[in-house]
């Protein structure tokens, strides 16, 4: 059984490179970094992981996960580097494909892309995506990135994501591309402890269109 650790990365977190080095030395198989690009001030959406709905203050301070994972990659040799999770609908898939491939290149093929659709409506919308279409946008983004990672001339025509033929390099070191883990929420009780059975992370509420998302989202 592999053991990973998910840690937040802020300006106050300390030396992330040393955290990664220690995690590798102690035998953890993976280090995971979460994402919230911005937290809209005054948002009304309750935080689903607390009883009072209040979002912990440190969520406002998270560093970009791919930059944090690059710091970890430069300090280590073996440990896998995961996003837990990347809010894909809030990102440009062309740029994200490039970033993921680049981190995979410089880490020697150690990236795991955990993706989720997000729960904070105000954040999704301030980042430019309609909340109601976030799962569709996420699915199309994954499909588009798979094309970008594997084809020399990559094009994609979805409802929400589309672009003409482009070159997007470097390609990922992992073939055909890094693992893409989907992070829906499904909570259950196991041996008295609360475990969230996921394919990536636990940040997102259980999506109604899960079967369709599951069918199309890759790994």
């Amino acid at each position: 059984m592999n053991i990973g650790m998910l840690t937040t990365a802020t300006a106050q977190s300390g030396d992330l490179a040393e955290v990664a080095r220690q995690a590798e030395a102690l035998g953890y198989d993976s280090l995971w970094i979460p994402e919230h690009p911005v937290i809209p001030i005054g948002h009304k959406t309750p935080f689903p992981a607390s009883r009072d709905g209040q979002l912990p203050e440190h969520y406002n301070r998270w560093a970009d996960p791919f930059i944090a994972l690059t710091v970890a990659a430069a300090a280590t040799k073996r440990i896998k580097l995961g996003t837990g999770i990347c809010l894909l609908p809030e990102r440009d898939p062309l740029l994200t494909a490039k970033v993921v491939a680049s981190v995979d290149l410089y880490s020697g093929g150690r990236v795991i892309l955990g993706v989720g659709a997000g729960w904070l409506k105000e954040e999704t919308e301030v980042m430019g995506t309609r909340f109601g279409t976030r799962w569709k946008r996420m699915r199309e983004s994954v499909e588009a990135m798979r094309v970008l990672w594997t084809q020399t001339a990559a094009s994609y025509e979805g409802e929400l994501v589309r672009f003409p033929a482009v070159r997007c390099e470097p390609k990922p070191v992992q073939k055909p591309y890094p693992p893409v883990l989907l992070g829906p929420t499904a909570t259950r009780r196991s041996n008295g402890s609360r475990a969230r059975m996921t394919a990536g992370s636990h940040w997102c509420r259980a999506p109604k269109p899960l079967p369709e998302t599951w069918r199309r989202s890759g790994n």
Partner: protein
Amino acid sequence: METLRKLTTDAGRDPDSLQVTIIVDPRGNGPSADDLKRYRDAGAGRVVVFSQQMGTEAADGKALELVKRLAPVVERAQHV
């Protein structure tokens, strides 16, 4: 996990091809060896330890301490 496998099969995909990672609140010392075996037997290939409390502690300078504190979970997992 049965639901996950059914959804995957219904979607025309091989459920054995999935990588399943679960996130577990360590609640102190982390999952026991028996817990880890149960997760393994359920089909999980990886356990990621995390809690909201850990997130707060890591954000405020205790990430390195957490890595060391939960290292016994890694040792337990070597026998699972």
